[in-house]
C-alpha cells in the first residue's frame, strides 16, 4: 500500500477530482521505465479526466549513475512549474542523459541554465528526491517502475492493457451506486 498519500507537494497531472490516482515510482535511466513511459501517456489519454497521474522518484543510483541528477533536474524544472515538460524531455532522450542534455532541455524550456548547474552541483533537490525514494521503500516499491492504483501496488505488467485493467477495476469500485 502507498504509505505516503498524494499531496500538493507531488507532481500531479490531471484533474484534482479524478476518481483514480495512478502513482509511478520511476527512474529516468531505467530502461523499463522508458518502455512504460508511452503506456502511461496512453492511459492518461484514454481515461482523461477520470485519472490523475503522479510521478515520484526512485533512482537506482548504483546501476544508473545518471538517474539521480536527472531526477534533480526534473525537480529543478518543477520548481519553475515546468516539471512535466522536463519529465517528457528526459524520457524522450533517455539514451543520452547527462549534464549536456539537462542543460539543453533547460534551455529549450527557457530555464536558467546556470541555476540548474548550481542546483545539481550543490544537491539542492537531493532531499526531495530522497524523500520520494524513502516513501517508495516504505510503500513496498520493489524495483522500477512500480505503480500504485488508488494506493494499491500494481503487481501486473506495465503494458497499456494491464495498467488500464487495473485502473478500470478501481473506477468500478469508486463509481457511485
Amino acid at each position, binding site marked *: 500500500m502507498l504509505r505516503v498519500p498524494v499531496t500538493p507537494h507531488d507532481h500531479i497531472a490531471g484533474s484534482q477530482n479524478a476518481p483514480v490516482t495512478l502513482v509511478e515510482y520511476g527512474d529516468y535511466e531505467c530502461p523499463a521505465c522508458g518502455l512504460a513511459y508511452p503506456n502511461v501517456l496512453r492511459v492518461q489519454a484514454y481515461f482523461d479526466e477520470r485519472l490523475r497521474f503522479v510521478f515520484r522518484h526512485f533512482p*537506482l543510483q*548504483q546501476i544508473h549513475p545518471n538517474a539521480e541528477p536527472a531526477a534533480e533536474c526534473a525537480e529543478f524544472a518543477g520548481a519553475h512549474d515546468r516539471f512535466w515538460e522536463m519529465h517528457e524531455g528526459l524520457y524522450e532522450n533517455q539514451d543520452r542523459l547527462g549534464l549536456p542534455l539537462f542543460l539543453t532541455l533547460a534551455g529549450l524550456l527557457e530555464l536558467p541554465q546556470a541555476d540548474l548547474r548550481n542546483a545539481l552541483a550543490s544537491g539542492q533537490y537531493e532531499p526531495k528526491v530522497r524523500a520520494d525514494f524513502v516513501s517508495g521503500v516504505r510503500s*513496498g516499491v*520493489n*524495483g522500477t517502475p512500480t505503480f500504485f492504483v488508488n494506493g494499491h501496488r500494481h503487481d501486473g505488467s506495465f503494458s497499456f492493457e494491464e495498467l488500464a485493467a487495473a485502473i478500470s477495476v478501481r473506477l468500478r469500485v469508486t463509481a457511485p451506486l
Partner: protein
Amino acid sequence: MKSRGSKRTVQFLGPGAAAPDFTLPVTPDQNLSLSDLKGKPVILAFYPADWSPVCGDQMTVYNEVLSEFHKHDAELLGLSVDGVWCHQAFAKDRRLHFPLLADFEPKGEVARKYGAYRNREGVSERALFVIDRRGVIFWSYLSPIAVNPGADGILDALERMSNRVGGAVE
C-alpha cells in the same frame, strides 16, 4: 506458512526461534559466520538466483536502501545457491555494497536450516529474516517466489525491534 509444492524437512523459521549459525564463503578466499555479527541486528535475504532482470531486482533495491538499514545498525547478507565466483561477478555488475554468501556446497544447506529451500527447483526461497542482537529471529517472511518483497517489511521489523523495551541496547 505452507510450502508451495516443495518438500521441506525443517519448517520455515519464525519469530522467537534461535537463528541457526552458519559459515559460508563470502569471497573466493574468505568465509563469514553469522556468529561474527553477534551483537548487531542481521537481515538475511535468501533469493533464488543471481542475474534476475536488472530494474526489478531485489538485491539492487536493497543496495539502495542500505543506509536505511544502517540507521538501525543492521547488517544485510544476501544468500543464494550460486557459487562464489558467480556472486562476485553479480555484485560487481550491480555495484552491490553488501556481502553475498554462497550457499553452494553442500547445496542449499543453510537455506534448509531456515526452512527456506525449494527441493524441486534446487534453489532457496525468496525469504527474509530479521535477527536481533542476541541471535534470535525477530521477524521472517516467505514471499511468493515470483514476487520481489521489497524492503518495507524489513524496515518495519527493524523499527519495531528498535522500539521494544531495551531493544537498542540488549
